[in-house]
């Protein structure tokens, strides 16, 4: 073993790591001995499964070999589970091979689709029981202006998270100075999309490309938007931006290589064009909400001024803050009823 000159970095090579893994690995025989089913069959299948992983054996051959033994061992449970195949794109052995085996349920995809359907049916009956969409949260944000220091971190975090091009900034901080020297004060008002309860942008869109989701977030369908920019005209908060197709690529090499999975769809990966020629806006980092995370601006705020949560849940922080005497909304008289509240 050679002497390392780098302090703090353990001096190990690949062999050492393999040995460490081997030490940590549990003995297959003793693990399987505790299970209800045959230890020998388990060991044999595990060995052959490794060969499948290495590409020495196809999944179809694997399942042909163990079909009879597996049915005898697992009975009905085996028959109703599709034969998995790690070496296949759809994770299932091919149709013809599956036919010849005793498993009868078709591909993994069809099983998944059926599960989705039955869940959807359950969900809709549940929603019908309690009136309307009471199951869905109404995402809201509360921004404490006493805590905001005007550092613009939220704007930067937003640009980093959503990879917005030049000229598009879902969040900005509006800075206002009041009074005359020496009696001056300064107010910083961060402005994301207000996710209005009555969004004027949605009313005017001629193609229904922008609409309000059940969780209160106003969405834009990049597959449908024609880029007429009427919504930008109608938005009282200037929260919408047109994607002129500009890029940071001139300033930062490969700036366009990383894209954001806006509304949960990674356009880059699926080979679609970025929403050039469309209107874009803040969506409360919808892809993060779906993962149970807070919007990037909320997570990053240095003064803990920004809060996000479910306004429908009276126990939530945002609901309680939005109820306080300090709470107000921007342009309240406009009837848009924003789901972004400010604390003065």
């Amino acid at each position, binding site marked *: 073993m050679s002497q390392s000159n780098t302090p703090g970095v353990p001096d190990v090579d690949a062999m050492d790591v393999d040995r460490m893994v081997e030490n940590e690995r549990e003995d297959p025989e003793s693990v399987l001995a505790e299970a209800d089913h045959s230890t020998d069959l388990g060991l044999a299948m595990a060995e052959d499964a490794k060969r499948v992983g290495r590409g020495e054996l196809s999944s179809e051959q694997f399942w042909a070999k163990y079909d009879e033994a597996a049915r005898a061992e697992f009975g009905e449970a085996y028959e109703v589970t599709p034969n998995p195949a790690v070496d296949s794109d759809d994770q299932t052995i091919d149709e013809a091979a599956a036919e010849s085996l005793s498993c009868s349920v078709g591909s993994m995809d069809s099983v998944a689709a059926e599960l989705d359907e039955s869940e959807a049916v359950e969900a809709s009956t549940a929603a019908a029981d309690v009136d309307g969409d009471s199951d869905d949260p109404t995402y809201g944000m509360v921004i404490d202006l006493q805590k905001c220091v005007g550092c613009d971190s939220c704007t930067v975090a937003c640009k980093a998270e959503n990879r917005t091009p030049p000229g598009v900034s879902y969040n900005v901080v509006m800075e206002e100075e009041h009074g005359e020297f020496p009696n001056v004060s300064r107010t910083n008002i961060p402005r994301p999309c207000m996710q209005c309860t009555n969004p004027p942008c949605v009313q005017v869109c001629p193609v229904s490309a922008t609409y309000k989701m059940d969780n209160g977030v106003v969405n834009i369908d990049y597959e449908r938007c024609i880029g007429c920019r009427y919504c930008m005209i109608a938005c009282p908060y200037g929260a919408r931006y047109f994607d002129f197709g500009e890029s940071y690529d001139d300033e930062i090499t490969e700036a366009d290589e990383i894209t954001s999975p806006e509304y949960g769809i990674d356009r880059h990966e699926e080979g679609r064009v970025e929403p050039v020629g469309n209107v874009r806006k803040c969506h409360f980092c919808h892809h993060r909400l779906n993962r149970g995370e807070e919007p990037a601006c909320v997570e990053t705020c240095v003064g803990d001024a920004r809060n996000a949560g479910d306004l429908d849940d009276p126990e939530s922080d945002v609901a309680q803050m939005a109820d306080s005497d300090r709470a107000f909304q921007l*342009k309240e008289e406009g009837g848009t009823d924003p789901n972004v509240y400010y604390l003065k």
Partner: protein
Amino acid sequence: MATETDTGRLEFDTDFGFTSDRIRYGWYGLLAVLLLVGAYAVYLRITQGMASTNLTSTTPWGAWVAFYIYFVGLSAGAFLVSTLSNVFGMEGMEKVDRDALFAAAISMAVALLFVWIDLGRMDRMYHPFIWRQITSPLMWEVHAYVAYIAVLVTELYFAMRVDLARLAARVGGWRGTLYRALTLGRTDTGERARERDETWLKRVGILGIPLAIFLVHGGTGVLFAVAKARPYWNSGLFPIIFVVSAIVSGAALVMGLYVLRSKVLGGDLDRSLLDRLAKLTAAFVLVDLAFFLIDMLIALNSLHPHDVETWLLILTGEMAWSFWLVMAGLGWAVPLALLSKRSWRRTPALMLLAALSVVIGIVGVRFNIVVPPLIVPVMEGLPAGEYFPSLVEWTTSAGIVAVGLVLYTLGVELLPLEPLGDDK
């Protein structure tokens, strides 16, 4: 216009193109240059996308939208002038009836080209017909435009059919084939058929009047007026001003074309008709001016900061020249002066000047409708806009207007846009 034929009978003129070849080739040459420049500009627009414009997220609408509402107005105005003859039976107006209808149809086509080029995704222009949003005025508008074009084409057909049939019977070659095709097989030129055409012309015109006033142009005004975020537009008077200024520009256009037509294509000019068109234009300029002042008074009295700021920007801002010189000067002052005297109203050259002045002045009106409220930011702390159209915006606009002029000129040279003389 009557010529002696070998049968010895007096016949109507079948050749209504330019009288001078020099003017013809000069005119088509100019249009060809504009089309070529425009085509290159459209190429730049398509390859560079909306980045080829000077539009921003603060000022998302600009020259193309201004020209779009301008040509919608021109169309609605010209159409309404045409109904003075074919619906209201105003005497003498039948001479400009078809020309007004044809100009209205071409203007509408030009307006739609402006809407199209303004879309961020031009390839998705059909989407409003698929995914309708009933609360969107823009969705209703595109449907109204289609219905309106159908009305215009139907009107033109009933207005021209008898003359088309007469031409088809008398002219051979490809022109004869064209005329026969345009009659859609109805070649009866008898008195009964003529009356039936007139009845239908009137019926479709009656349908078209509310369509043009309330849906096509009033609706385009509504499109702006519903934008509560822009208090300058958000007034009940706004759609009405839209319609009035549309009639101003339409009446002036019809008057200008009437003078031009007799100058360039030959033929006599009815001075009392000219006087009537001039009075009509003057009356609507006055109504337009009055409504404008009322709207300004209401806005300034509201003391709404955004509204007041927008008005001050128009009156005193960087682009105030476009208000004082183009809108107030060419749109109101010059025409009102020229239209004030009876003898001037009967002087073709002066009326052509007045018409041109109005037609250009209303362009200023349209720009001052679209741009100023998009310069003043919607909230304090957001950046203010700055906008002057880019070269690509200007040259594509010139190209699109040239498309309209080519279509119009071809129509003038080929179609009986002025009623043909009698057979004997």
